[in-house]
């Protein structure tokens, strides 16, 4: 049996940012934005990254896409290490990972017409000949549900949802191996969210796409993702397939997070109780031990100085907690 290479394989990824010093002699502190993250995404699958604001979801995505500098670790795309790449090699690699941002407006040049914006992505990555590129632009517009007429409009003439479609067309221009969607629907109205989520799922099936899907909306994540990793202060505390994670969350943080989500289902509502109080600790030189210990109702003595490792508990479930 041939074991297929995962599209994305991340090992022990760390991204530290230096804090600004107040005076020259002060020692630098570090923001541990991403602190030892390991992930794997197989071809055609969607991995969800969830967690509270500041937990390091975006930074993880940006580091994988080489849009921020990783401090250490390894990121392999189709088996090829990308963290060390420079110059021409990096430019070629960029075709293979594309990023869809939360706010499509700020990521699109307002002075270019929509057709040019998508076209530019092809030009920049030197994909195909002139006529091929025009045909490809037409095709991409059709695939994301925009018409030919839309090619002539400027981004500000688009609605939020149409702009996100444009952002997706642009990202798909280079036939990427991996599409990183960072809160792709958070800025949109619910009705438009459904349109974009359906589009992303349809494109995935039709084009065989692999997604890293970042979101804080657990309902959306449950609908979109095959597997989910829960992040807390730069680390993954639980990772499981969608059924296991939502049916049987094991980490106290995951349980609390799920319990906090309001629900329109009366049966689910009866059971939810708030479990998480307070706020996450600062990611600046975070303390030893379990990072959740300051909010965990089950915390024991050792939780405050022994760091729990992410361990396999079941076939499809990994948890980082001393009690599990």
């Amino acid at each position, binding site marked *: 049996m041939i074991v297929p290479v995962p599209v994305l394989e991340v090992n022990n990824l760390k991204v530290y940012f230096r804090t600004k010093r107040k005076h020259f002699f002060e020692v630098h502190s570090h923001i541990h934005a991403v602190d030892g993250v390991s992930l794997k995404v197989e071809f055609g699958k969607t991995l969800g990254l969830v967690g509270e604001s500041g937990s390091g979801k975006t930074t993880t995505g940006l580091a994988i896409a080489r849009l921020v500098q990783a401090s250490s670790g390894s990121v392999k795309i189709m088996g090829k290490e990308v963290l060390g790449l420079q110059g021409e090699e990096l430019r070629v690699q960029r075709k293979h990972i594309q990023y869809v941002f939360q706010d499509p407006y700020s990521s699109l040049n307002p002075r270019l017409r929509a057709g040019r914006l998508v076209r530019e992505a092809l030009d920049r990555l030197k994909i195909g000949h002139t006529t091929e590129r025009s045909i490809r632009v037409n095709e991409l517009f059709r695939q994301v549900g925009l018409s030919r007429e839309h090619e002539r409009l400027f981004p500000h003439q688009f609605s939020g949802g149409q702009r996100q479609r444009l952002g997706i067309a642009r990202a798909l221009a280079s036939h990427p191996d991996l599409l990183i969607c960072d809160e792709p629907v958070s800025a949109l*109205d619910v*009705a438009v969210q459904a349109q974009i989520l359906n589009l992303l799922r349809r494109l995935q099936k039709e084009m065989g796409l692999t997604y890293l899907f970042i979101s804080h909306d657990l309902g959306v994540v449950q609908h979109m993702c095959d597997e989910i990793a829960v992040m807390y202060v730069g680390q993954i505390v639980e990772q499981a397939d969608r059924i296991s994670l939502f049916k049987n969350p094991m980490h106290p943080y995951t349980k609390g997070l799920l319990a906090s989500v309001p629900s329109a*289902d009366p049966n689910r509502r009866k059971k939810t109780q708030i479990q998480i109080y307070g706020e996450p600790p600062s990611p600046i030189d975070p303390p030893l031990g379990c990072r959740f210990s300051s909010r965990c109702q089950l915390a024991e003595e050792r939780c405050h100085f022994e760091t729990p490792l992410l361990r396999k508990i079941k076939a499809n479930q990994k948890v980082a907690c001393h009690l599990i």
Partner: protein
Amino acid sequence: MPDPILSIKNLTVVFKTRSGDVPVIDDVSFSIAPREILGIVGESGCGKTMTSLAIMRLMPEQGKITSGSIRLSGEDLVVASEARMCGLRGNEISMVFQEPMTALNPVFSVGEQIAEVLKTHQGLSNSEAREHAIELLESVKIPLPSQRANDYPHQLSGGMRQRVMIAIALACKPKVLIADEPTTALDVTVQAHIFELLHELRDQTGTSIILITHDMASVAEMAERVMVMYAGRKVEEGPVEEILKNPLHPYTQGLIRCVPHLKETISPERKDLHEIPGIVPPISHFGRNECLFAPRCCFVEDRCLNQRPLDSKRAAKHLTACWQENTNFEKVFA
């Protein structure tokens, strides 16, 4: 039902725009009882914020109330003088906005800001006001309130800032609190606490709350009754459980069906989400004598394009504005 504390009748708010005068609020009526929590839902641009600003009489320059009444304990706010409104705002009726950072003054500590409200509205002395400010911070569950009182807004997290805003809004025990998307910018863990806090405050003080949100699940969690708005109009109104189980207006049905709800059970197979095609019409279409939802509606018929549907009562407390008697609905919640 007890007499409503706030009763809005046939409210119309007209905006002057380049394409003429348009009603951003178009003949809207609703009321709220003492201690009641009413949710208002709808996509952005449907007039939720304008409705609350009209009640507060804080609309932007180009907006004008052209007809209708807004009665607070019987008194019509539409005809109240500006001086009278100043006396009511903060005392009888308060509002919490989506972005607490813009509503707080960055150069004063949060303790000073709350104390200021107490001094102007209740005539407390400096030391009384400061003491009471700390009590209020405590009542919204801010840890170490006497220390936090000295913090400036930027030193607090988003959730803490929103609590401060709620503390300010509740400083004078208003009869009605309007919370306009108070948790949209916050994490769900924080949102859960803000919701719990609002519930507790209502239970303790009897304040009525209007919760504006775009999230049906938040309405389900928080409110007893819900009003759905579309393009400046009320399209459906009723008890929350009833609306969730048996929504009658195609827009309400769409809002419930298009969301990937977290449910009690999770199924291996995933169907496509229901789509409401298109988007909310531009403001220039508001006010037309037709159903403004028609371009997005799968039940549309001729009459919908020629006449605005009127409110019709379908059950004891369940109103909807739709010409169709039979809008079949694939049930989401049994």
